[in-house]
C-alpha cells in the first residue's frame, strides 16, 4: 500500500530529517540559539525538544565561538552534533571555530580525527531585514577547504541532503534560504514545498540536478535562484527559448561535470546567484566551464548576482539589487541574439 503523498516545507522536512537521525543514533544531538523551546527561529528544530528533551536539544548562550567550538570537540569525541548558526551573517563572530577547527582538524590529524558535524544556518534576504541579516555568503564558505557546503532549493532535497549530511563524517555547512523555509511569518516560494517521503533517504553530495531540460541556454542557480530561473525558463519557453536549468545543490563538492555538459549542449551559460557577485559562486561556475573548454561558448557567459554592496534595507533598493525572474529573462533574450 503506497503511503499517501504529502507536501512539506523545507523547515518541516529538515526537522523531520533531524528527528529521524536522532531516533536512529543517540549520538546525534542539536544545539544552538533558540532551537529548543522556540523550535528554531526558522522552524528547523520544531518539535524536537518535546521528543528528545533538553539534553539532546540544547539552547545555548549567545556564544557562537564556544558552542560551535564545542560541537567540534563533541564530534571528535564520538557525537554527531547538528549545530545552528541562526543567521549566516553572524559567521564573523565564530568563523575560527568553523574554518580553522571544524574544517581542518581532520587534515591536521592526518585523518585520525574526523569531525562529523552539521552546521545549519539560514541565508538570504528579500524581506527587508537589512545588511546584517540578509546575506548568503555562499562564496565565503565554499572558498575555504575542509567543509562541504549544501544549498537545497526544495523540501525534498533538503531532507535528503540533511540525511546525507548527518551520515557524513565531515563538517557540512547546511545553508537554508529564508525564502524557501516555509515559516509562517516569511513569504515562501511555493515550488519549494514539494512531496517529501516519510522514510529517510539520501540525496548525494556533488550531484547537481537538471531541474528543467532545454537546448538553448544553461541557467545555473542554487537555493532560491533556482526558482527564479525556472520561472524565467517558463516565460522564455513561451517565446520559443528552451532554457536548461541546473540546480547546483552542493557547492562543495561541486558538480562541474553536469554544468559543463549542459553548456556543451547549449553553448550558453548564465549563472544566477543572490550572494555578492565578485569572487564568489558565479565566477567559479563560469571559470570552471571556461577552463575546461572555452570554445563551447556561443556567446560570452554571463552572471546575475547581488552587486558588491551591503544589502540595503529599503524595499526599492533591495529589490533592485536582488536577482529576479525578469532580470534573467532579459539577460537570456540578450544572450540569444548571438
Amino acid at each position, binding site marked *: 500500500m503506497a503511503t499517501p503523498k504529502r507536501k512539506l516545507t523545507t523547515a518541516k522536512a529538515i526537522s523531520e530529517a533531524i528527528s529521524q537521525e536522532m531516533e536512529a543514533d543517540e549520538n546525534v544531538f542539536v544545539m544552538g540559539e533558540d532551537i529548543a523551546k522556540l523550535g528554531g527561529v526558522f522552524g528547523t528544530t520544531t518539535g524536537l525538544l518535546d521528543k528528545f528533551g533538553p539534553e539532546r536539544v540544547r539552547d545555548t*548562550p*549567545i556564544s557562537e565561538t564556544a558552542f560551535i567550538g564545542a560541537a567540534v570537540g563533541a564530534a571528535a569525541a564520538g557525537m554527531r552534533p547538528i549545530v545552528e548558526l541562526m543567521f549566516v551573517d553572524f559567521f564573523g563572530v565564530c568563523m575560527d571555530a568553523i574554518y580553522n577547527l571544524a574544517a581542518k582538524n581532520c587534515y591536521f590529524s592526518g585523518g585520525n580525527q574526523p569531525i562529523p558535524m552539521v552546521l545549519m544556518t539560514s541565508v538570504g534576504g528579500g524581506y527587508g*531585514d537589512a545588511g546584517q541579516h540578509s546575506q548568503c555568503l555562499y562564496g565565503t564558505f565554499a572558498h575555504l577547504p575542509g567543509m562541504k557546503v549544501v544549498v537545497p532549493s526544495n523540501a525534498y532535497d533538503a531532507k535528503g541532503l540533511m540525511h546525507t549530511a548527518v551520515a557524513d563524517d565531515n563538517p557540512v555547512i547546511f545553508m537554508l534560504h529564508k525564502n524557501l523555509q516555509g515559516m509562517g511569518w516569511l513569504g515562501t516560494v511555493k515550488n519549494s514545498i514539494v512531496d517529501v517521503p516519510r522514510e529517510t533517504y539520501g540525496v548525494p553530495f556533488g550531484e547537481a540536478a537538471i531541474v528543467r531540460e532545454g537546448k538553448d541556454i544553461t541557467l545555473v542557480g542554487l537555493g532560491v535562484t533556482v526558482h527564479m530561473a525556472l520561472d524565467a525558463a517558463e516565460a522564455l519557453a513561451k517565446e520559443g527559448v528552451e532554457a536548461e536549468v541546473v540546480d547546483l545543490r552542493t557547492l562543495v563538492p561541486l558538480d562541474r561535470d553536469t554544468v559543463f555538459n549542459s553548456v556543451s549542449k547549449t553553448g550558453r551559460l548564465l549563472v544566477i546567484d543572490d550572494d555578492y557577485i565578485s569572487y564568489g559562486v558565479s565566477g567559479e561556475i563560469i571559470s570552471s566551464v571556461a577552463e575546461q573548454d572555452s570554445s563551447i561558448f556561443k556567446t560570452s557567459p554571463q552572471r546575475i548576482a547581488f552587486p558588491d554592496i551591503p544589502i540595503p534595507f529599503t524595499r526599492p533598493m533591495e529589490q533592485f539589487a536582488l536577482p529576479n525572474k525578469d532580470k534573467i529573462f532579459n539577460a537570456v533574450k540578450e544572450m540569444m541574439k548571438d
Partner: protein
Amino acid sequence: MQADAKKQSWMYENMFKSRYYEECMEAAYLEGKQPVFNMANGPVPGEMHLSNGQEPCAVGVCAHLDADDAVFATHRPHHIAIAKGVDLKAMTAEIFGKKTGLSGGRGGHMHLFDTKVNFACSGIIAEGMGPAAGVALARKLRNEPGVAVAFIGEGAANQGGFHETMNLAAVWKLPFVCIIEDNAWGISVAKTDATAVPRNDVRAAAYGIPGEYVEGNDPLAIYDAAERAINRARAGEGPSLIEIETYRLAGHFMGDAEAYRPEGEKDGLLAKDPIPAFRKHLLDSGVINEAALKNIEGAMHAEVDEAFEFARAAAEPEPAEALEKVFA
C-alpha cells in the same frame, strides 16, 4: 545625586515619547501584515524589536549625556535613540525606508546612525562594544570631552566581544561605560539558562572595575548608578559596568508568540509597567502635577505623530541609489 525635578520630568517625557513611539511603530509595522503575518510586507518590512518596558534604562543613562558623548545601542534601539536625542523625523523615515531617512533607507531599524548626536546601533550581539571603546579611545587621544556608552542585552554579556572590550577599556582606562539591559530573556532563552551567574555586575571583578546591579527597573535608581559610572569615566578613572533589571513587555520581535514565557510572567510585568509607575511617583512626590504631565504627554504625542507623518509623506529613494554610499 538624586535627579532634580527638571531631570525627572525630562526622563518621564522621554519614556513617554518612547512608548508612544513604539505604539505607533507597532501599528505601522502591522499594516499590510494582516490577516497573514509576513515580515516582508507593509510599509516597514524586516524584523522589528520594540523596547516597551525598557525605557528606564535609556533615560536613566542618557540623562547624563550630551551630544558629544557617544552611545552604541543594539537591535532594540528606539528607546535609547530617543533618549539620546536622535532626530526623530529622520529616524522614523529611515525605519520606513525613505529617502529622507537618516541613511536614505539603507540601514533601517537596526542600523540607525545619527552622527550629530553620536548615536549608532547595529544588529549583531555585542557588536557595539568595540566601537564604543574606540570612540572613548579617540576622545582620550584627542583630548576631547565625552564618554562612550555601549548598551547591550543581558544575553550579550556571554558574547566574546563583551569580555574583550571590557578588558581593553579597563587596561586602557577608557572613558567608557557598559550598560546591560537585563530583560531576563535573549529571544526565548532565559538568563538563568544562558548565564552562569545571576547578575552580570559580578563580572566587573574580572576587569578590576566597579560593577553595579540596579533592581526594579527604576529610572531614578538607574540615574544614580549611571551618574557614578559616567562621572568616573569623565574623570579619567576608567570604565564601569552596570546591569539594570528591566522588563521586556513585548515579544522579542514582532510576530513572536512568546510561548516560551512562563504562565503569568507577562501579566506580572505589565502590572509593573515603569511608565505609569514613574508617572505616579512624579505626582505623589509632587515633582510635577497632573496638568503639566498632560502637557508633556500632549507634546510628545504631537512630536511622534509629526515624525510618523513626515516619514509616511517622504519619498521613496530611487532603486539605483542602492549602489551609492558603499564607499565614502
